[in-house]
Each structure stands twice: as C-alpha cells, then as structure tokens.
C-alpha cells in the first residue's frame, strides 16, 4: 500500500514536471552531451551512471527522456524501461523498472521458475555538484555529481531463497566525467557504495557481508563524429551471497562490462547497441539432480539494445 502511494506520488511529480517542460524546452545542449540511459535509469553509459545530467536542456530548462532497454542473455532476459527528468542541467530524477525474465528451466528451486520475471523498481536522483564536462576544456576539473538509487524488489521469496538480508536498499555514488575534446574522448569514473546483489535483483546484503562497500565503475568513449560514439564500461560488484546459504545455489558475483556503440540520430532519438557480460548469475550446475541436465554455469552475456527519446 505504501509502495503504491509512493509510486503514485512519484508519477504525479513527473507529470507535473512534464506539464511545465514545453515552456522551458530549448534542447540547447550539444548532441550526445546528455549521455544515454544506464540499466538503473540514470543518465550515463549503458551500465554506469555518469556525472552528466540526462536530456538536452541547459541550465534554463527542464527536459524529459524516456528509454527502453532490452538485453537478451543466455538464461535471462533483462527489460529495463525508464524515464528521467533533467532539471536545469543540475538535477536529474529517474525511474526505471528492471524486469529480469528467467528463460532457463533449471533454476526452479527458490522460485526462479522458467517464465517468471523478477521485478525491481529503481528511483534515482543525481545532483551535479561542480564542473562542466564540455566547457571546462582548460582545466583538469571534471564534472562531478553525486547520486542515489533506491531499489526495491517485488520478489521477496527469491530474496529470501538466496539468503539475502533485505528486499530493498539504496546505492550511493559519486561520478566524475570529463570530455577531452582535444582527443575526442569522454572519460568517466564512478564510485558506488552498495549492498546490492546482482544490481539488486537478488536483494541486498547476505551472509558474506551486509554493509556498504565501495565498488568501482569506469567508462571510456571515443567520439567518431557528432552522431556516433563507441566505448567500453566496467563495473565491479560486491559478493554478499554465499553459495550454500539459501535454497538456491548462487555463483560468486562477477564484475560486469560492456563494449558499446551509440548513435545519436537527432536530439530526440538515440540508439545504443552493446555486447554485455554480466558474469555468472546463478550456478545451474548444482541444481537438484532431478532437473540437472549437465549444464556448466553460464556466463550471462549477450546483446544490449537501448532506444532513448528526448523531449
């Protein structure tokens, strides 16, 4: 009930801001300088939140971006639609749903039935603190932003089955982004304090650890043209869950990475395609004998496709 009221309040705030947007939209930022949308909804690369504020509005306006992300992996499919509002190139508010569909029938113990979709909501806020990634070409100072992502899982049974401590939690991060125009490069480093297991899809905290740990994330992109950038990202993750703590055997959590290409058709539309590797997510080789089919634990890798529309 409280969750529904929170969601409703969030939606009304978004709608109110959207109603104001037409009066304040000039799409004044240079192409590609709002970044794209990462899997948890924040502006950045595909995996990592950056210090850039989503959208094309400058400090004079409010802009909205919506995105749709589809990531077919070996045993799972991630679908992550979301929306972000960029206010005055200073504050970013975002919402994303992480819908993690289970395609493999060998994960049934603990509730991971084939055909089930795990669902996590992520509410994000990001504040640009200092610096401008594009204008500060004559200084070493990057654009720095701090952010938080509140995540809550709808799958309390799975969270319990894997031995996680909480079904919801908040990540805190600080990101530093710099555009080196002399080299047509964008560089980003993010440090995130988190307890999330597999981005939060398997709850927060666990037998190995239930306190905040810093994780390191980095992105590098090369701008080939005004419209086209390629790059790579890397994200380290905690390892809070232990293999035998829950009903479902859990593989140690791996780091995630991707290599991407982003195409900015116009200031209204961008497309990102990537190859992503999220490491092992559940260790199918230890599934009960009755349904074990001699599979090796799979690395969850595959394509990443994202469409972003900005207004």
């Amino acid at each position, binding site marked *: 009930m409280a969750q529904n009221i929170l969601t409703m309040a969030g939606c009304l705030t978004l709608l109110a801001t959207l109603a104001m947007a037409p009066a304040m939209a000039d799409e*004044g930022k240079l192409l590609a300088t709002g970044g794209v949308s990462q899997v948890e909804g924040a502006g950045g690369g595909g995996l990592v939140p950056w210090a850039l504020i989503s959208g094309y509005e*400058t400090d004079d306006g409010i802009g909205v971006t919506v995105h749709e992300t589809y990531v077919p992996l070996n045993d799972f499919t991630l679908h992550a639609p979301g929306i972000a509002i960029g206010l005055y190139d200073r504050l970013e508010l975002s919402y994303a749903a992480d819908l993690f569909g289970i395609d493999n029938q060998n994960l049934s113990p603990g509730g991971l039935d084939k055909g089930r979709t795990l669902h996590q909501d992520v509410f994000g806020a990001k504040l640009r603190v200092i610096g401008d990634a594009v204008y500060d*070409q004559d200084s070493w100072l990057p654009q720095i932003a701090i952010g938080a992502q509140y995540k809550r899982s709808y799958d309390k049974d799975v969270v319990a089955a894997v031995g996680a401590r909480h079904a919801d939690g908040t990540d805190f991060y600080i990101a530093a982004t710099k555009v080196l125009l*002399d080299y047509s490069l964008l560089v980003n480093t993010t440090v995130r304090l988190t307890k999330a297991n597999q981005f939060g899809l398997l709850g927060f905290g666990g037998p190995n650890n239930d306190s905040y740990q810093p994780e390191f994330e980095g992105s590098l992109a090369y701008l080939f043209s*005004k419209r086209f950038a390629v790059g790579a990202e890397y994200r380290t993750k905690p390892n809070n869950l232990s293999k035998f703590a829950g009903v479902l055997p859990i593989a140690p959590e791996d780091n995630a990475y991707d290599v991407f290409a982003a195409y900015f058709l116009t200031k209204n539309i961008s497309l990102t395609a990537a190859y992503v590797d999220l490491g092992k997510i559940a260790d199918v080789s230890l599934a009960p004998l009755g349904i074990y089919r001699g599979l090796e634990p799979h690395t969850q890798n595959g394509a990443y496709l994202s469409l972003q529309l900005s207004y």
Partner: protein
Amino acid sequence: MSNHRLCLLAAGLLAFSAGADVTRAEENPLYKGGFQYNDAGTTPAKDDSLYRALGGSEKIAAFTRDFVGLIYQDDQIGKYFVGVDRDHLTAMLIAQFIELSGGPGRYQGRDMAETHKGLNIGNSDFNRLAEDLQTAMDRNDVGFATQNRLVALLASMQRAVVTR
C-alpha cells in the same frame, strides 16, 4: 547595433588578452601543457599544428565565411547580429581563428566579459554558435577530430560570454 557595439561583440567572440604573443612554429610561452591552461584567460595553441590541420589561412577563411552566414541566418542567435557589419566581423573572426590555432599573425582583442555584458547570452545560445561553427567546418571538410581541437580552444570562453 552601433558600429561601436559591433567592434566589441566581434572582438569578443574570441578571447585574447591584450599583448598575447603567439609565435609561429615555436612553443608558445603561455602554454602550460596538459589542457593548455592559461591564467591570462585564454587558451592559445602550443604550436601551429592545429592551424595546419585546419588547412591554413585559406581554409580557415572559407569555413569562417560559411560560419558567419549561418549565425546571421540562425533562428535562435541571429538576433545578436542584426545591424552588425558582416564583412568586418568575418575578417576579424578569420584573424582570430588563425591566431588561436597557432597560425601567423597577431590579434589584440577586448575582454570577453566586458564585450558580452548586457547581451543576456545563455548556454543554449553559446552552444548554438558552436553548432553553427561545426556545420560550417563540416561543409568545408574539416575532420571531426580537428573540429574538436578548435572547439576545445573556444569552450572555456563560455564562462565570460554566458551571463544568463
């Protein structure tokens, strides 16, 4: 806009402190390495490599003429140039781009903040000007990486030019 204002605006489109002395193919003593940080408020090129990459004076003159054409017709920023002598502005910009990129010649301009004071220029206006410059360079076959090197030298002017 009066001729007096024209001079100030045109001169102010690129910032140069009075007396900035850019030598030709030698190292610029004001260059400090890394991001070409310069506490005189300008970012001069350390040598003439960008000038040569832009195609020298002729090519710079060509894209600058196209650039001025675009900004005069621009539906967002054209208003700042109403009444401004176009030929004079073009000639001054050419000289400024040549010097900024490390080419031969010297230009002495006025302080950026002073010349743009009162114009209420916003970030989107500043960016629109940069986009027009990119378009002009595209049309004159300047490679994107080279375009970025020129834009890098102009970017820090945002601080003084944008007052809104």
